[in-house]
């Protein structure tokens, strides 16, 4: 039914959702041609595989698919700079809040990877 889910995550939440599309708000630490090393809102570092994808700002939101618990293959990026500073603590708080069970109805949830069945 709705496979196009992309939740905002931090580095800790990358585990267990291999293959899913996620959004990662992060700060770019190192940039090279194919790879970017970024720091997620919980402080963990993630490797971004970014062939042909531009990274134009210090703070970006990377939209991509999860390769493993510390790597994302980027499909697109959104620049997030707001006067040079982004309060990552605040971002992290919000991310953690969105996963709380009391908000299950508000946010889509990833289905379990193991029991992945086509839904219609």
């Amino acid at each position, binding site marked *: 039914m709705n496979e196009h889910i992309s939740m905002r995550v931090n580095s800790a939440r990358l585990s267990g959702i291999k293959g899913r599309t996620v959004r990662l708000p992060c700060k770019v630490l190192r940039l090279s041609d194919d790879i970017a090393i970024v720091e997620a809102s919980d402080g963990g570092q993630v490797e971004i595989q970014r062939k042909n994808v531009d990274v134009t700002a210090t703070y970006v939101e990377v939209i991509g698919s999860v390769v493993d618990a510390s790597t994302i293959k980027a499909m697109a990026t959104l620049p997030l700079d*707001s006067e040079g500073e982004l*309060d990552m603590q*605040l971002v992290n*708080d*919000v991310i953690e*809040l969105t996963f709380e069970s009391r908000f299950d109805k508000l946010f889509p949830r990833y289905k379990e990877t193991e029991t992945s069945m086509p839904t219609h």
Partner: protein
Amino acid sequence: MSQLSSGICRRLNEAPQEEIDHLASGHTVQLLSIKKVAPTPSSTTATDRFRIIISDGVHFVQAMLATQLNDLVANGDINKNTVVVIDKLACNFVQDKRLIIILDLHVVSRDEEKIGSPTAPPPTQDAPAPSVVETASSSISAPATSSSTSQAKQPQPQPRTGPSGRGGRSVYPIEGLSPYQNNWTIKARVTQKSDIRTWSNQRGEGKLFNVTLMDESGEIRGTGFNAVVDELYEKFEEGKVYYISKARVNLAKKKFSNLQNDYELSLEKNTEVEECLETTSVPMMKYNFVELSSLEKLERDNTCDVIGVVKEVGPLGEITSKATNRTIPKRDLTIVDMSQFSVRLTLWGKQAEQFAADDLPVVAFKGVKVGDFGGRTLSMVSSSIMTISPDIEEAHLLRGWYDGIGTEKNFQSHTSGSSGASFGGFNRNEMRHLSDVKESQLGMSDKAEFFSTRATIMHIKSESISYPACPTQGCNKKVVDLGSGWRCEKCDKTFERPEYRYIMSMAVADWSGQAWLQGFNEAGLAVFGKTADEERNEAEYNALMAQASGVTFNFSCRAKQDTYNDQTRVRYGISRITSLDYREEAKHLVDLLKSPWAK
């Protein structure tokens, strides 16, 4: 020459039974005389009994030597003028008289001269002889005075068990004062002394002054009129401790004082005031601090105590009292505390003029009045007390907190700083949404009411957004174009060019509804980012309007009823408008989600 424990004789003479046992061990006294007393007829053993007179250099009292110590007399260990240390004594009360018995002692030195000129302990309130021997006395008298005041704390203060007429030094607690007993003495600190005030009304005129007196049990106000002012005003000094007696105890006139006591003292011609040098037991100041964040819970006109860091000191200003047509100096301070709130506090008169602390001091305020001018404000009244950098725990805590992290913090303000007819602090906790504002009919009563809200500008009435105003600072009246200039009626001046100021009606909306708000110059500046003076052609004008629509702001508004051509409507005026700091707002939302309310 040995040092005697002066003051001990008086204590021995006055303290009650249970206390004596704790007293007096380890005190140094001189035996002025030892006399053999005829043994009681019933005693079978022919034991001698010795009556001795012990002196502390200031007073002397009679005592008996316990029989076990008789040997000391017999073999000459103790005799006239011997200085001894009392190791143990007892006190028997026989028929209203007290009998002190020395049970054990040891000799310090003999063959001394008589030390001091001890007199009989005073039956009435004479000036306490300044201690001839100071050093030993302070350590002794401190426990002695505290024990006497603790004794006095019993519900029915013990009348003197000693010979009557010793009403002098028995110290009452202030709490125990009542109009029905007038043979009392209080020992209290002057925490506040007012200026001499003169009055004149139909009944006559005169002068008066007030003092606030405090001891461990409570506080009481004392007032002296006319002749008493001349006598006693100079005697009282703030911060010093006095023995006071023979003042009249009256019912308190609560109108003039905010102290808790039901009674107050009238200082009269025969009131006795003596400075007391033993100040250790009288507390400095009792505070009951309220955190700035909870000031809103207090009603206006209440008094409270607060302590905070003076973050900002306003300039000295003047205000003309409508009642007396006199100008009174005033100064505003902004204080902050660990609850992360700030509030404005007003000083008046001499205090305003003399306030000169520029270095972010911690100041404690006692008995300041709560006002609701623009949220919450505090104001000094005649009985308020301000202490800069007090040596109390809360002050040290505040100092440490502010020096550490306080300077960085943004404080939530109880007041708004902008000019304008009336104020309204932006209070995030009391934010309402627009449908709530309309339904609760804010402003429907004649009084103006305030609220805060966050809304988005939908539309600005573009027919008239500015008007020509008088450029004089503070006067914003519309000026009339005479052709040769622009004239302001209020200032009676004519100007070549007016200053254009914004006046706008805006439709704002939030998720619940829409409302029309009236904004003045500050609002216009915030919305457009430009002054009204700049000339604009039509294209620019439209662009400006478009740019302003769809922007969200926090508004502090004042709702008031207005009658316009027989039509009565509620108008919402903007007293303060601020752009959103998304980070701040988001943080608040997160906090809200984490709060129990959201679970």
